[in-house]
């Protein structure tokens, strides 16, 4: 079996040798004319690696307006004529305080607002008391007082133009604006 394999291989080699010799002697015919077809290459934008920004860098990139538009600090609401911090406002203030602790350079303005069912004059005092309530609460949660300013707008800047219970509730509020970061 092995002998047969060796024999046939040597035969093949001999034939191949002769064949190659003949080829060299004979003139090669010109290659057939083929239309040239360049290879297609899709040109794509070189992949650039997106730098992975840290949270700090994202925060630093935003303008105050952009930051305020995201409303990272939520509004709290008050009862009619009252300025104490309601139970439903406490977790919101906790979140606001946590956010301020995370971003230690932030300074905020607490705006106290009232609904239209108080007088212009007295509402100015009431709005300020509402701002002060949130101010005191944030202080109790460990925020430094020099990071917070307060203002009252009385009833001059309602957020809801309606004249019903829902609108009045929406308007009796503290808003938190970022004024420095």
């Amino acid at each position, binding site marked *: 079996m092995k002998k047969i394999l060796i024999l046939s291989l040597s035969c093949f080699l001999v034939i191949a040798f002769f064949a190659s010799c003949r080829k060299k002697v004979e003139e090669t015919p010109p290659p057939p004319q083929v239309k040239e077809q360049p290879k297609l290459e899709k040109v794509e934008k070189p992949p650039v690696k997106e730098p992975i920004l840290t949270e700090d860098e994202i925060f630093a990139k935003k303008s105050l307006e952009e930051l305020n538009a995201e409303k990272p600090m939520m509004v709290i609401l008050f009862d009619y004529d009252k300025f104490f911090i309601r139970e439903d406002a406490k977790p919101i203030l906790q979140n606001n305080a946590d956010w301020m602790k995370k971003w230690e350079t932030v300074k905020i303005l607490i705006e106290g607002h009232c609904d239209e069912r108080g*007088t212009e*004059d007295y509402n100015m*005092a009431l709005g300020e008391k509402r701002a002060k309530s949130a101010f005191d609460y944030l202080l109790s949660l460990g925020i430094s007082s020099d990071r917070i300013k307060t203002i009252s707008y009385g009833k001059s800047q309602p957020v809801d133009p309606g004249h019903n219970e829902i609108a009045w509730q929406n308007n009796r509020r503290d808003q938190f604006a970022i004024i420095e970061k």
Partner: protein
Amino acid sequence: MIAKKIIILACLFLVSNFILHPQQEVVMSIKEGMPLIHVAIPKFSVKDTSPEAKDAADILYKVISDDLKYSRVFSPLPKNYYNYIKPLDPDKILFNDWESIQAKLLIVGQVSKQDDKTIQFEAKFYDVKSERFIRGKTYQAEKSILRLAAHKFSNLMMETYGEPQIFTTKVVFISNRDGNNELYMMDYDGHNQTRLTFNREKDYMPAWSTDGKSIAYTEFKGGNARLYIYNPFEGKRKLVFDRGTSFGPCFSPDSKKLAFCSTEDESNSEIYAARSDGTNIKRLTFNKSADVSPSWSPNCREIAFTSDRSGSPQIYIMDAEGSNIRRRSFGGNYHDSPSWSPTGDMIVYVSRVQAVFDLYILNLRTDEIIKLTEGYARNESPGWSPDGRHIIFSSNRIGTIQLYSIDYDGANLKRLTSKGQNKLPDWARN
């Protein structure tokens, strides 16, 4: 018949008040004023035949008639009375005729065209009984300011009778008609409404200086509520106070002081007083409650204000240095915005009952209270005319907030504005 009606109305009023304020004693008083002086104002004659002079005569006649009717000093005679007598001949006045229709005074006006722009208006008034000329003046005015010429003549009549010249005084107020709360000014009768600030910031609570040349007001800008004094005629502005939320200015009638509120100390609103140029600021109230809405007495020795030291906002009076505080409103649980009358004997204020605001007048001599407005609305921010006969205020009775004037006895309610929302009026003393 009329008396019976009044009694029934008064009873209804008392009953309704008893229901609304169980503890508040309300006494109605009808103030006896001076008798009105009956004035005959025949149509003004036109010297030439120009249409300009004729139009001008109509305007002048209308403005003077309206002024005198509003004055509560004079009373123009009903027009049909003039049908009983011969028309007026300015050169030959038949005083007996005018006396026969009960005229005490007779106004004679003659209008002519001076040139293309200017109108000449000669106005005189006579005492009918004595057939004597009292006073008169010839006014030359451009057509665009004829109303001012007419107001000046009405003022001349007021001055002659020892009354304040209210017809050229101005009202400052806040309007959002152009999209933002800005300062506006208008004539006492609602004409010539003019915008004063173009700062695109929110302006609030304006008050005239005593001479009627400057306005103290709050500007909300960049998270601050600062108090400024602004002279719109010269375009000059001066910062008064920039700590806390500062608001509610009121100049003293002797033009020496400016009272205002600020929350600079622990966010609690207190009352301060400065010189009228805004310097030398001193604090007047010291307590843990809110004190707002100062208003000077005419002799400048006292200040009325609102405080919630009793647990709810009530009206108090203190001496101008802040001492001797006494409460002047009782019953009800929400009184605010006191304004001391120029006559000294009355304080107008707002009382809130179940979210309805009405104006009341407290008579300081008799402790009587008169309810001035009626209507399920918010009537607020009252302020006096310089002569103490009229009160300007804001009300949302037509849905939007507009300015109104009403007389001290509840008569002559009149709406003055209609564009946008208009509020926080202050009537200049001069």
